[in-house]
């Protein structure tokens, strides 16, 4: 069992906002290994994006990060900007959600890729050009040589995202973080990009962290799934295990809320009431308590800790599904 590439330990991120403190990430711990895919699943306010940006040190000034993020043994929290820059894009790369906003509309895409190459390697202009074309072909961008001189607006959303991936790969990263990288894309394009990422992972041995709100995506492409709610990890397990026996009612709710092709038309979706929590006013107890169908007083008073309750399966819940008292049926998958 090799040492993990990336290890988060009790990560907390606070934001100062108009006088009060909002805790966006509350004690997150996980590991990312080489050639494996970890899916961080959560809705708005879950803290998944903030935690990813904390890894890359891309948070605004108002953020305060505590805890530990270790990349290959090096502690990233509190690392100087200069040393962080050496890692960012080079060893750890990130692909963002909206390629339209992440690419510079006034630069040709070839130039944007070569720029990324130059930052991390001392190469000649010609070498950078060749490497850029190589990368474009790696991400299956059709007609790479011709596209080199095109501008972002001349490309479709899917193609722009491929360019983003090419830029991310320019430094030969060992860890790639895909933050909702396919959310803004069409379903068919999303599938193509996800297959590309998985393919690249196999070929290059990268660790991949995919951040999404789509459990379906996690089921199809991830080795391990971590579900977040209100800044905390609430369930974590290998994909087969998690989908085989969902324990945390929130995860079960997420699964139940996904429309299935197998369902007959006009099936009512299993929906929980209420809204995602207001991070600024967090009462004690489990953050999901106001909406949980299994809630008891204990849940409202004390927040359940995240613990490995079955081998390889961690969850934070006093009344998990499929065990003891909950009348909940096993999740029909």
């Amino acid at each position, binding site marked *: 069992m090799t040492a993990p590439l990336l290890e988060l330990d009790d990560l907390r991120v606070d934001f100062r906002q108009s*006088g009060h403190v909002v805790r966006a990430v509350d004690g997150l711990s996980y590991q990312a290994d080489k050639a494996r895919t970890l899916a961080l699943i959560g809705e*708005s*306010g879950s803290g998944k994006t903030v935690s990813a940006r904390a890894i890359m040190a891309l948070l605004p000034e108002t953020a305060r990060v505590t805890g530990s993020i270790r990349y290959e043994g090096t502690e990233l929290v509190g690392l100087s900007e200069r040393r962080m820059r050496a890692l960012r894009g080079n060893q750890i790369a990130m692909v963002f959600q*909206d390629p339209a906003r992440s690419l510079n509309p006034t630069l040709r895409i070839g130039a944007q890729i070569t720029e990324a190459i130059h930052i991390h390697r001392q190469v000649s202009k010609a070498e950078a050009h060749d490497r850029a074309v190589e990368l474009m072909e790696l991400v299956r961008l059709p007609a790479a040589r011709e596209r080199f001189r095109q501008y972002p607006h001349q490309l479709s959303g899917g193609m722009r995202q491929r360019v983003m991936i090419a830029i991310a790969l320019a430094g030969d990263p060992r860890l790639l973080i895909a933050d*909702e990288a396919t959310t803004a894309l069409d379903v068919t394009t999303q599938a193509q990009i996800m297959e590309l990422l998985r393919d690249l992972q196999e070929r290059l041995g990268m660790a991949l962290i995919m951040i999404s*709100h789509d459990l379906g995506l996690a089921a199809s492409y991830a080795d391990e799934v971590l579900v977040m709610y209100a800044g905390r990890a609430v369930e974590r397990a290998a994909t087969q295990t998690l989908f085989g026996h969902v324990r945390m009612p929130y995860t079960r709710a997420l699964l139940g809320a996904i429309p299935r092709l197998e369902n007959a038309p006009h099936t009512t979706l299993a929906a929980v009431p209420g809204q995602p*929590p207001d991070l600024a006013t967090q009462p004690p107890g489990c953050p999901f308590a106001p909406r949980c169908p299994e809630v008891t007083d204990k849940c409202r008073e004390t927040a359940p800790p995240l613990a490995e309750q079955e081998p390889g399966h961690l969850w934070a819940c006093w009344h998990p599904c499929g065990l003891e008292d909950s009348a909940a049926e096993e999740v029909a998958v």
Partner: protein
Amino acid sequence: MAAPTEGLVPGVLEPAVVAPPPGEEGRLGRLRVLGGIWLPALLVAAIFFLCFVWPIIGPVPSPTGGSILNSNDPSFTPGHLFGTDATGNDEWSRLLYGGRASLEVALAVTAVGLIVGGTLGAFAGYVGGWRDGVIMRALDVLIAFPALVLAVAIAERLGPGELHAIWALSFFSVPAFGRLARAATLRVREQNFIAAARLSGTGHVRTLLRHVVPNILPELITFALLGMGIIIVLEGALSFLGLGIPPPAPSWGNMIAQGEGILSAQPKFVLLPSAALFITVVSFNLLGESMRARWTAR
């Protein structure tokens, strides 16, 4: 109030921190935000009070008709805080009345710009087509001239006088507001709530008045506040050139003009109106900027 960076997901709009209804915000936060607005607002209010209200209720002598026997009294002479000018007029009083004249012009010009220019621009932006073209070309002609040149040319034609100054400067403010209103209207018009209003059966006029105008108003008002500063300076320039308010009625501009000749001997006659101009313009700018910050933060 959206959560710090969560919710940047353009497909997913649930804000993690839902803005509470008014009255439930944290106290400290409120102070900080309003500090940015209250201070300049207080300054502007003070300036208006001094120039419009104080001369009526307070012991302020007339700015004209001073006795030549009192001429050139130094500052802090009893009864004359800043002394008197060459013809015996109280300088403090001239400052206040001069401010009133300058502010009257600025307010009038801004009002004309806001109402006439704003209406033209909003209408042009909303209807589009050839009507939009005609209106904007007409406004473009006026905008093509540098503001001061235009104002001077018109004021020269009309001759000095407060009303004429307002006329002349309006040729600048109307197209400026018109352009802004049109741009803002174009942006608002694309929004789905306009389409939704039309689908609800709301007629064009009502849509324009009840949906477009309230949504472009913040931008226009911010612009108006920032514009006040510009107009005051322009009025000052006009008066300085002898084209605005004619002496002996004071305005900050003509006070500076009059004081220019004796600048080295008695600098206060230039420094005082200049300082007043400066403080006023900066106050309006600060107010405008803080309002803009507030509107865009929403």
